[in-house]
């Protein structure tokens, strides 16, 4: 389903809350030339680190690569281009993409190298950077609980980017640790509403 050259938004924070089964399958099928939008590239052998090790990523838009020396090596060798984005700006750019906004105004990055090439807008005497929205062909999401309709409830620190990327992918593929009958997740505990989810995959 995912073609070579696709853009992927992937949930997870240092590999925690990343849909590992999808990472393994993408490596297995050797999908190439991928653009990855995610918090980080994890560590070799974990989460998005598996895609890095298999050299499947041509562009990464992330906030942190410090714990994956392979990402740094591929960046220096110009095998992968890396756009580093402050974490709070990255999540808001994804949110803007998913929420239909034309961008966001943030004070983060003003007066640093992050402001290069960006419009500065003054509001109430304070300067902000205009940061553009991000969307992707696919959002790859990990959840703790899903029902058969696709309602999702996350757990602990595996939530992180997942509910936000679930809004910003044209096709949303979810790996669930547990899939339960409809009605078992209380409406108040659903974080991602079922109509957003296109495909649900069991963890094992």
């Amino acid at each position: 389903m995912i073609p070579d050259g696709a853009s992927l938004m992937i949930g997870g924070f240092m590999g925690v809350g990343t849909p590992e089964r999808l990472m393994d399958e993408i490596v297995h099928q050797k999908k190439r030339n991928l653009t990855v939008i995610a918090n980080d590239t994890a560590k070799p052998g974990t989460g998005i680190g598996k895609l890095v090790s298999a050299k499947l990523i041509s562009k990464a838009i992330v906030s942190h690569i410090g714990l994956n020396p392979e990402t740094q090596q591929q960046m220096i060798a110009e095998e992968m281009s890396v756009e580093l984005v402050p974490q709070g700006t990255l999540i808001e750019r994804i949110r803007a993409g998913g929420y239909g906004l034309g961008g966001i105004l943030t004070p983060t990055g003003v007066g640093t190298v992050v402001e290069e090439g960006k419009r500065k807008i003054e509001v109430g005497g304070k300067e902000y950077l205009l940061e553009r929205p991000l969307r992707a062909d696919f959002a790859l999401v990990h959840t703790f609980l899903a029902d058969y309709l696709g309602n999702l409830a996350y757990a602990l620190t595996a939530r992180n980017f997942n509910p936000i990327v679930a809004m910003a992918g044209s096709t949303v593929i979810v790996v669930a640790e547990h899939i339960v009958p409809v009605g078992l997740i209380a409406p108040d505990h659903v974080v991602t509403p079922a109509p957003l989810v296109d495909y649900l995959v069991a963890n094992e």
Partner: protein
Amino acid sequence: MDAQTTIAKRIARELRSGMLVNLGIGIPTLVANYVPSDLRVFFQSENGLIGTGPIPEEGMAHPTLTDAGGRPVTALPGACTFDSAISFGLIRGGHVDVTVLGGLEVDQQGLLANWMIPGKMVPGMGGAMDLVTGAKRVIVAMQHSAKGKSKIIKKCTLPLTSARPVDLVVTELAVIAFPAGRATLMETAPAVSVAQVIEATAAELVISQQVQEMQF
């Protein structure tokens, strides 16, 4: 007391009950070990947790309960979890009372560089730019010098983390604040003289009228 312990213990004294506090990786993480047990401080991990507790006992780690470095932590009773947009809304929106971060350089105006050394180390800024820009109070925990060179200098040579100056720098030698935008020596570590701090510092230091000895 070694340098890291001196720094962490001194910074712990800045925390008060009810504060929401974010600790960075490295020396800042140690600060939590020295907070008196009668204080109720809320520690945030920016991957989506308030109420971060100590490292779990062996065998008790949970695969989806981790800190911002991806290492297992515990959650104290009353903890809560949330997504990254809320986490950074808390940070950027001024809801975090204190952030403690490491530093590569701090200049005499209080500007911090702590996220890259061009050509050498490009880990990415992670949450550091948002934290320094948005937290109510920014404290830098770092050793005074690296490889014999002062890390407190006239003007940062490395890329800045934020245009917002930090509030306090705590090293194993001194506590430095930035009233009126000038590095000012407030405290010296036990058995360290004002002259020794000046000698070890490449920035121009204003000397407070009453330099105190660091208390722990």
